[in-house]
């Protein structure tokens, strides 16, 4: 089919437009019909497979659902276990840039006055042993460090050394049930919560972070406790973490979009 619509000169003279368009339209009709049928069947099958393997994001509805689903699905297929780039100590940004934070609530000020000794991270939902952890308890687990980049969806970025305990360790302690699919996490700041799938929750670089650049995690960077998720941009790295819920569905949380950011119009999956 490398020479489309070669038309004999004799036929051209009689009726050039008709003869060429008629030849084209029949072939087009058949190929278009086959392609459309295959496309519909393929899309239906693809949607079922995607749902089964957890490739559909909670914000898949609406006009941007197609692009969002393609992005999340291909990221999950390509990058499920890949590690965020780590940097050398000499590449650490001095000083690290702290983005704007909301003025602290009275509750936060009270906890800060006590040196965050009474700060608690509670974990419930689809877990065998719901529990609550102080910062000191979290520090009693073997600490891990990563020198990774935090990049904001706005375009700026910095590199820091983050110290914490992998979220997977704490999830092990509480015993995540097999049907769990998401971890929803909440800040002490009002209306600040996000969620991640189990691939990100169990990822070795997903930290409950309490230290930064050899010191305590500064309040400006989300201290005393921040979820560090180096494979997703800044807004998924929620500051002032107080609560985790393990769940098999995001429908019961807010509008069911999986976080405050999606409800504000930002994508749930922010690995790009």
């Amino acid at each position: 089919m490398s020479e489309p619509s070669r038309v004999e000169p004799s036929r051209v003279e009689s009726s050039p437009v008709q003869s060429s368009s008629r030849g084209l339209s029949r072939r087009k009709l058949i190929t278009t019909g086959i392609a459309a049928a295959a496309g519909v069947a393929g899309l239906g099958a693809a949607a079922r497979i995607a749902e089964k393997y957890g490739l559909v994001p909670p914000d898949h509805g609406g006009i941007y659902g197609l692009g969002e689903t393609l992005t999340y699905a291909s990221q999950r297929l390509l990058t499920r276990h890949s590690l965020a780039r780590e940097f050398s100590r000499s590449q650490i940004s001095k000083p690290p840039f702290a983005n704007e934070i909301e003025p602290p609530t009275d509750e936060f000020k009270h906890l800060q006055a006590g040196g965050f000794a009474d700060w608690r991270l509670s974990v419930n939902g689809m877990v065998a042993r719901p529990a609550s952890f102080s910062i000191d308890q979290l520090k009693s687990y073997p600490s891990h460090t990563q020198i990774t980049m935090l990049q904001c969806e706005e375009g700026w970025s910095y590199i820091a050394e983050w110290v914490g305990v992998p979220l997977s360790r704490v999830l092990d302690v509480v015993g995540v049930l097999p049907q769990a699919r998401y971890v929803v996490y909440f800040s002490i700041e009002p209306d600040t919560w996000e969620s991640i799938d189990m691939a990100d929750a169990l990822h070795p670089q997903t930290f409950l972070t309490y230290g930064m650049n050899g010191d305590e995690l500064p309040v400006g960077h989300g201290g005393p406790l921040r979820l560090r998720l180096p494979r997703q941009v800044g807004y998924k790295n929620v500051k002032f973490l107080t609560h985790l819920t393990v769940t098999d569905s995001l429908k019961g949380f807010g509008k069911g979009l999986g976080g405050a950011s999606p409800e504000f119009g930002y994508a749930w999956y922010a690995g790009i």
Partner: protein
Amino acid sequence: MSDVRATCYHPRVGDSACVPIAASAVPTTTVTSRHSGLVRVTHWITTLCFFALLVSGVEIIISHPRFYWGETGNDLTAPLFKLPIPASRRLVPTGYGYVLPDQNGWSRYLHFQAAWVVIVTGLLYAISGLFTGHLRKNLLPGKADLSWRGFSTAIANHLRFKGPSESEAWSYNLLQRLTYLFVIFFLFPLVIWTGLAMSPAFVSAFPATVNVLGGQQSARTLHFFVSLALVLFLLVHVLMVCLAGFKSRMRAMITGRVATHLERP
């Protein structure tokens, strides 16, 4: 005008665009496709996506109109350069006393969705172009044209704003061919690459894609410049369409049909 005997004698021009018309035919008779259906459809989908990417890209830049080189950059580090525009974030030191509204949510959604559509469209165009011979016949320059003489003639014709010869009107001249090849096989792949090199998740799987560019902020700066080059191409492209006859060219790219007597600027 009345003596259009063989509209198409140039050896490069594809058979599909080459139907001899009897001189006695009514001048406004239309002939078979100037552009194939696939070229027309992919052209306009790409156009639509390009505008979506441009508008959303500008909105995203407005949230941080500063550019850096290397891995990192933020309000505390010296920029390579900054755009003299206000920002949609309060902390960015722009020199303006006001902050624009935040548009990043839908802009990022739209940017990535349009990117998906344009990538699929581009692949469809490139792969089918290989099989139908469109790339070989219409975009690869003829050997004879790839000489200093060929270049100087083409450039001189452009500088004189000389309209296309009859043969060129049915295909593309040397400068068009080289420009389209450059845009399709260099600028588009580069803008996709530099875009993906900004994704923290993508580069976790393919770290070389950002490392060879010199870092994540370098990728962002390069993405900006490649986008500028594409905008420049768009402006020249539209200008050339106007000079060559806006109505006939638009008609050719929408319906595929061209009048046998070619409109002159």
